[in-house]
């Protein structure tokens, strides 16, 4: 201690001050050169997610954002082709598309050889082992395990021979027996697996391309137990880094990723838009992904403008600043190299009637009245910048079974007619009609949308009690059939009309996906026939018929198929909008040279 004191006394106060200034300055210089290197030199993709994602357990990935994170680390047997439209499935972990028996009930998959799990301490010596057919079997069993909080069992519920029986048996056991044989899942050899279905199920392949059915390693599940959620060990193109300040997640390239290449085929327009420039390039293209959790739209937008996010759907209130009245990108942004595109998702927004409520059950006229009082053009203007497509029924454009020329007669805005129907329903001028409880989730503009709905119904003397509640609470109410009316949306799990019509199928009533509890024998029958058919023109015709039939029964007030406007930085490569984003991050690229040229313009 005394020596130190002597030393300090020897230095004058001034020199100490100067020294500390030098320290501070050099620290500052050092840190700023570091950030610069980080921003320009490395091939880093920067993504924003608007909610805290749940974690990395695939069996719980029932929301878009968790699915996207899972898809960076894990892989499934199949995936949607990145560029082709209409969508087409292609093999991913499978070597080729499966062999299907003539009766359509047996599917045989051959797996790619040499697919390695990430290195992790759950494996002997910490080195990842090869993926085998047993892993596929294990992962699907996990999805059906009644002891686990699986949210995705519905995709194979009742479809694979013996799986439901195994599930039921496991319920009464203390521990699920993963080694007990299941008739419908056969591991033929180390790289061949066979599924036997209980009946025709043409959507089976879609089920195997969903984030629920990605392949996990048994060692990892058993090693990390409850913490498996936070320790993904997959075969995917990226490895997880750590959380940074709980609002950022960093992924790095998997150095041992097998040889997978960027597609060389796509839509006709893809070549012109440069989406085929990287054809044949080894995947993944970027070295690193930074995912930032930014809940509010406004800070996300400001971060995009500073070049901290590579692509983003334009927030509703920014739209007029971003897109000119001619519908093109604002030149101020275009000068900075930013690109914009309209993107139509495969989804439908609707306001549902609880069809088990005596008020709406058997009262088609009341439903028609409310549907016709709904001013779709005004809503499109106020909330969707006139971009979205008014929905006539549930099936969206881009899915076979959608008829672009169809206009649902009860979906057109006409207050006078709406009043007539209200009178026919037994409530002339709204007399005798009780107040209707309406729920909407407290999103960015939930309350305003709710007030708009309230106002439109008031115009025909229908009184709405508006309840703006958190999203989880709304889900709860709907699955307990306690919401009299509510607004929600449904986005495609796979590009097929069945995936949309199922939200009106009687047996799918709440807590299933049919939250409005519509149960019409006629519709159910049409659905049952069409949903087990292979993709043929006859099936498309049946879907179309069922879609129109349901449309005119008005179990829902159909609102929109959403169209968003997406902007991307000039240096972002290979961005193609898709409703199915889970496995897409390996295709995205960053043009580092262009970034160093454009970034100064943004700052």
């Amino acid at each position, binding site marked *: 201690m005394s020596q130190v004191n002597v030393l300090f006394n020897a230095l004058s106060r001034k020199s100490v001050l100067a020294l500390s200034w030098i320290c501070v300055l050099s620290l500052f210089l050092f840190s700023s050169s570091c950030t610069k290197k980080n921003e320009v030199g490395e091939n880093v993709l920067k993504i924003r997610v608007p909610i805290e994602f749940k974690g990395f357990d695939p069996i719980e990935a029932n929301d878009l954002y968790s699915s996207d994170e899972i898809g960076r680390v894990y892989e499934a047997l199949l995936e949607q082709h990145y560029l082709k439209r209409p969508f087409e499935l292609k093999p991913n972990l499978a070597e080729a598309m499966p062999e299907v028996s003539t009766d359509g009930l047996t599917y045989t998959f051959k797996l790619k050889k040499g697919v390695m799990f990430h290195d992790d301490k759950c494996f002997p010596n910490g080195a990842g082992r090869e993926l085998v057919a047993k892993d596929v079997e294990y992962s699907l069993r996990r999805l059906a395990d009644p002891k686990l909080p699986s949210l995705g069992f519905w995709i194979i519920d009742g479809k694979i021979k013996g799986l439901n029986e195994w599930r039921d048996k496991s319920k009464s056991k203390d521990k699920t027996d993963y080694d007990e044989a299941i008739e419908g899942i056969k591991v033929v050899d180390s790289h061949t697996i066979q599924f036997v279905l209980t009946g025709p199920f043409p959507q089976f392949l879609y089920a195997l391309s969903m984030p629920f059915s990605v392949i996990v390693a048994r060692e990892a599940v058993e090693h990390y137990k409850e913490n498996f959620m936070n320790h993904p060990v997959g075969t995917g193109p990226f490895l997880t880094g750590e959380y940074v300040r709980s609002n950022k997640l960093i992924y790095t390239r998997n150095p041992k990723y097998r040889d997978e290449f960027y597609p060389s085929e796509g839509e006709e327009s893809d070549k012109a838009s440069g989406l085929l420039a990287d054809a044949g390039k080894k995947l993944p293209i970027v070295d690193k992904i930074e995912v930032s959790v930014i809940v509010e739209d406004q800070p996300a937008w400001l971060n995009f403008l500073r070049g901290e996010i590579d692509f983003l759907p334009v927030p509703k*209130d920014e739209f007029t600043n971003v897109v000119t009245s001619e519908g093109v990108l604002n030149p101020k942004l275009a000068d900075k190299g930013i690109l914009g595109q309209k993107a139509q998702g495969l989804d439908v927004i609707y306001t549902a009637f609880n069809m088990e409520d005596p008020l709406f059950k058997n009262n088609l006229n009341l439903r028609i009245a409310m549907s016709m009082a709904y001013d779709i053009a005004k809503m499109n*203007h106020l909330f969707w910048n006139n971009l979205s497509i008014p929905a006539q029924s549930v099936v969206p454009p881009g899915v076979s079974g959608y008829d672009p020329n169809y206009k649902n007669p009860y979906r057109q805005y006409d207050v006078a007619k709406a009043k007539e129907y209200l009178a026919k329903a037994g409530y002339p001028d709204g007399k005798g009609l009780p107040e209707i409880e309406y729920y909407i989730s407290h999103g*960015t503009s939930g309350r305003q949308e709710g007030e708009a709905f309230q*106002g439109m119904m*008031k115009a025909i003397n229908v009184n709405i009690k508006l309840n703006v509640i958190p999203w989880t609470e709304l889900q709860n109410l709907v699955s307990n059939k306690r919401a009299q009316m509510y607004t929600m949306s449904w986005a495609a799990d796979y590009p097929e009309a069945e995936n949309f019509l199922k939200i009106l199928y009687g047996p799918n009533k709440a807590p299933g996906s049919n939250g409005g509890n519509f149960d019409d024998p006629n519709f159910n029958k049409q659905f049952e026939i069409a949903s087990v058919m292979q993709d043929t023109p006859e099936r498309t015709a049946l879907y179309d018929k069922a879609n129109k039939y349901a449309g005119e029964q008005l179990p829902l007030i159909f609102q929109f198929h959403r169209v968003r406007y997406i902007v991307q930085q000039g240096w972002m490569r290979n961005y193609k909008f898709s409703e199915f984003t889970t496995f897409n991050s390996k295709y995205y690229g960053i043009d580092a040279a262009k970034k160093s040229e454009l970034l100064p313009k943004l700052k």
Partner: protein
Amino acid sequence: MSINAPVNPPANHLSNQALASSNKDVSKVERNHSLWSLAFKKLIKDKVALSCILVIFGYVLVAILSKFGIIGANWAESVAASYAPPSGDLWLGADIFGRSVLVKTLMGTRVAVSVGLITVMVSVPLGIFFGAVSGYFGGFIDEIITWFYTTLASIPNIMLLISLTFVLGKGITSVYIALGITSWIGLCRMIRGEVMKHKTREYVQAATAIGASNYRKLFIHILPNVFHIVIIESSLLFQTAVKSEVILSFLGLGVQDLPSWGKMIDESKMELARGVWWQLAGATIAMFFLLLSLNLLGDALRDALDPKLKGKD
């Protein structure tokens, strides 16, 4: 009534005491000047306090007029284009549905004032009762009440409010109840302290000597002497309640069917991006003047009523 005669008239007690302590010539002061009339005189002379009272009175008037439908009955009608900017006809512009922001701001006054008043009406009796009982009786009763309010106070206020509105359901009634049953603690503590101090005073001992009941001593003798605290605290409680209502409505837990300043601020947080500043301006200006007046009035009331501050100016 005869039993009361030997005892100091409670309301005069303080003023006499204060006069004695200020060592002025007692004979020059008129005898019928109670604490209240002195305070009132002082308040009238204070121009700031007077203008605050006028401002608050204005808010109350707006609230009453809108309650009876004279102002803003048709606030839900659209009178202009969506997001019309402020103009000569429409001083504060229009919101997303073309409704007048000025009318919405005035309607917000009704919610704010009613929440303030009802919260005070609920929490003041609670605070007085618990504070007085616990300070007067002490012992076991005091321990229980003190434990109860300390526990309640240890829960962060906004968290408590949010959970209460979740339990009670949304709407203005829940806001009244939630705020009423969470805001009495401060007042309770002060009353408790004052009552403890007063119960050993001579005038209370005198009342005891002539056989006055506990009820009589507490509510007829002691309480009027600590009542100035209630007045001061009420004005501060009022403004806390207004602020809390704004926060709850901002979070979507407050008022559902009426315009409220919190809801307006919530909407404007996104609208600012497109340059629509008038909702935020309307709500914050209205809040600013009400809260400022209440705060200044609270200070002026304390200056006028608190005997400890007497003679300082």
